[in-house]
């Protein structure tokens, strides 16, 4: 690496640089608390939050709630992305099918996931079903749109190569169309997972008796701002880790793509 400073790839830049701003914020926040500018009943100090966080982890309360939320995400994300990918593929492959569904998707897509929650509770009750559905809806749209665009945007030149070699429709799909849409699928999965995570917390905030969102809401009701803040922090951290996980998977599966993009300039 001749110019590490320009690439932003040295380990200093990768691991240490991102920590500066959070550290600064924490120090400032702690100082304000120490100086008495922040009331602990409204915004407890970072150290107090950290202590609470440690206690919540030790007692098993936080891991339990987090586990419940994650399990919901797993189910909803699985359902939502599967349906989104299949429908996106079908719409991308068939302009007729796309036309057929265009009004429905155009109408439903702008509705924020959160707006579905009251209706879903009415139809499905407060239990797992409604929450999993909300998550599925959250993950569904980004995957649908990205897969659709990925399939539609396939380079016709590649398909011509397949046709000259007299490949059947199945081979064209598996060996050409799907691989070339894979980068878009991953974009959809990343955005979808973020949406899914945001949706579960949203659903739990509104109606639940377990999960990380519920933990925060309950903490507010019983005036435990430190628990509230610890919960908020954990939501962010979990989202970050999930994104990193999916990025890692993408890097592994799409090694060819990065190099290809770079070559094309």
């Amino acid at each position: 690496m001749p110019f590490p400073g320009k690439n932003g790839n040295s380990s200093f830049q990768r691991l240490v640089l991102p920590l500066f701003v959070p550290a600064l914020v924490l120090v400032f926040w702690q100082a304000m608390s120490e100086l008495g500018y922040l009331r602990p009943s409204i915004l407890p100090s970072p150290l107090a939050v950290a202590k609470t966080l440690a206690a919540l982890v030790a007692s098993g309360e936080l891991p339990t709630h987090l586990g419940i939320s994650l399990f919901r995400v797993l189910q909803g994300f699985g359902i939502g992305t599967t349906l989104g990918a299949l429908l996106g593929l079908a719409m991308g492959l068939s302009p007729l099918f796309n036309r057929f569904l265009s009004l429905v998707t155009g109408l439903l897509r702008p509705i924020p996931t959160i707006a579905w929650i009251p209706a879903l509770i009415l139809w499905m009750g407060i239990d797992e079903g409604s929450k999993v559905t909300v998550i599925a809806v959250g993950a569904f749209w980004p995957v649908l749109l990205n897969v659709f665009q990925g399939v539609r945007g396939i380079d016709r030149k590649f398909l011509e190569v397949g046709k000259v070699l007299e490949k059947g429709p199945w081979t064209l799909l598996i060996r050409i169309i799907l691989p070339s849409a894979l980068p878009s699928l991953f974009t959809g999965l990343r955005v979808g997972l973020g949406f899914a995570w945001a949706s579960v917390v949203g659903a739990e905030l509104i109606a639940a008796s377990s999960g990380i969102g519920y933990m925060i809401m309950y903490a507010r009701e019983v005036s435990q701002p430190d628990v509230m803040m610890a919960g908020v922090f954990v939501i962010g951290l979990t989202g970050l880790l999930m994104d990193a996980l999916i990025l890692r998977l993408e890097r592994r599966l799409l090694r060819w793509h990065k190099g290809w993009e770079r070559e094309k300039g």
Partner: protein
Amino acid sequence: MKQSHDRLTLKGVGKSYPLATGPLRVLEGVDLEVEPGEFIALVGRSGSGKSTLLRLVGGLEEAGEGEIRLGERLIRGPGIERGMVFQEPRLFPWMTARQNVAFGLKEGTAGPQAGRTVEQYLQLVGLEAFGDLYPHQLSGGMQQRAAMARALVSHPQVLLLDEPFGALDALTRIQMQREILRIWGESKGTLILVTHDIDEAVFLGDRVAVLSDHPGTLREVIPIPLGRPRDRSSAEFGRIRTEIFNQFFGESQG
């Protein structure tokens, strides 16, 4: 390429593209008979319809007028007996060089024999050590050679090459010209190679087909009565080159 006994016949072939401003006539009245195992070099200016003509033979476009036959059979669409190497390599970026070459095999071909065939063709184009690399890890010339191997593994009767050496430097180009002659010599299939390099056309072709432009018509098909290997510096070579050059720029400037 396979020993082929089918003559390729183009009769009154014409092609127009519908544009907003009216139809654009690209090819008109192209007559050409290509003997089995013959090497045709097709030259013409940029935009004269060389790629279009090749795509018609490849079955990727439909001719508006006239007909194209391979043997008795009318060409209506693409077929694996007509291999094609495009103007750009068109390797699949998600496949290694080896997988790309293997993709050229006939649908349903698999097993150790298929694997050996793929290796054989990787070797033929000098990529045996690079089979596991992805296209972006290959040089432009290597990519074009891999594309060539992909078109060759299925032993097409007719091989259509659209300026396969266009992106190569002069040295690699000359080396690739020798390679293509060797590959063609080993298989004795029919070969049509598009180029805008007159020197290349005279060096390679049994006959050189000259395409005029707007609309593209076959101006002349010039037989090259030279044995192989050809000597580019010989007087006869120079005479033929000048003759073709004059087709484009007129006698006065020859």
